[in-house]
């Protein structure tokens, strides 16, 4: 028994409790479950999306990658920005049609829009296939984090099973609402931890962020740029392009658009336009 265990258990119980609580007072039907009755406000949508993007990758992948590969990791900053440029035109159109036709999922959308069940089947299959490595990444990350933070008291496989079970429980009960509310908590925590570590570690060990880069540069002059053999400019460009396009792949980011709620305008202005949600795969990312 160590001090980390009660904290882990608290968060474990808290995430289930919050997930179940988020259903309060709502008549559950498919539309409520999958797209929040098309009634989410812009802030919660913003958090849901942030929850889909900032996951265990933020802690493990995005920190381990620069440690071993240096400058190549900067691609992580680029692809999201470029993907959202596409989204500006793509998303409102998808949302408009999804909202008009009362669609609740990505395969739904394709099957209605193009009147083709086969197309919708292909989309579903691609979505599931794209989701598997993504899920594996998230759950492995979850396992590593729990194993480390519990000082080995909770083995990796057990934490994956428990985490998966908790997530399945609240998603089945509350659907997208649980994912959204857990994303709120998780986003705040991730942000606090990332900002703290990002500022504190360089200050503590090197006296500043600039000083840290200078030190790395002194140790290895090419480390902070793209370098041969694997990570040259071509690798960088194609990785960004692929990731930016793949942003729309497994329904986790595409789905929210088909499901935004009532207000038609693309803008903020006085009325908020952005009503949305995504499917359970997004809840995986927000809980993991």
């Amino acid at each position, binding site marked *: 028994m160590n001090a980390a265990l009660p904290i882990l258990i608290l968060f474990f119980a808290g995430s289930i409790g919050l997930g179940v609580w988020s259903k309060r007072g709502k008549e559950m039907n498919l539309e409520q479950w999958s797209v929040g009755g098309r009634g989410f406000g812009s802030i919660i949508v913003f958090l849901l999306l942030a929850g889909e993007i900032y996951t265990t990758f933020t802690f493990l992948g995005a920190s381990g990658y620069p440690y071993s590969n240096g*400058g190549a990791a*900067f691609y992580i*900053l*680029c692809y999201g*920005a*470029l993907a*959202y*440029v596409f989204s*500006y035109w793509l998303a*409102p159109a998808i949302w*408009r*049609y999804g*909202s*008009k036709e009362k669609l609740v999922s990505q395969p739904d959308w394709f099957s209605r829009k193009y009147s083709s069940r086969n197309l919708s089947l292909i989309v579903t299959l691609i979505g599931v296939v794209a989701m598997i490595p993504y899920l594996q990444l998230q759950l492995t990350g979850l396992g590593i984090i729990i194993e480390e933070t519990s000082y080995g008291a909770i083995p990796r496989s057990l934490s994956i099973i428990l985490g998966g079970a908790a997530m399945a429980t609240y998603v089945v009960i509350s659907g997208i609402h649980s994912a959204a509310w857990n994303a709120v908590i998780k986003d705040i925590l991730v942000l606090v931890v990332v900002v703290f570590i990002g500022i504190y570690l360089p200050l503590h060990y090197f006296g*500043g*962020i*600039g*000083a840290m*880069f*200078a030190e790395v*540069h002194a140790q290895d*002059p*090419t480390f*902070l*740029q*793209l370098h041969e053999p694997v990570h040259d*400019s071509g690798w*960088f*460009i194609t990785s*960004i*392009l692929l990731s930016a396009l793949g942003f729309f792949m497994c329904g986790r980011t595409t789905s929210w658009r088909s499901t935004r709620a*009532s*207000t*038609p*305008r*693309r*803008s903020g*202005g006085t009325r908020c336009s952005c009503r949305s949600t995504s499917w359970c795969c997004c809840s995986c990312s927000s809980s993991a």
Partner: protein
Amino acid sequence: MRFALALPPFIGMLVLIPWANRTDPFILGLPFLLFWVVLWVVLTAVCMTIIFFLDPANKPGAVEEGVTP
């Protein structure tokens, strides 16, 4: 015009990368490639903001087709 404004981010973060791939000079304490990439993330937001305000769909009172309130 609006579509043209969406191009600079792609030029900055894709086309110009071979040129920007250098460590020196350090700017604001960041190696040049990192500075370049961060700069373009910010500039992408600037471009999209300008597009947003130019877009007739976002004018106050604009009605988008095909949506029931």
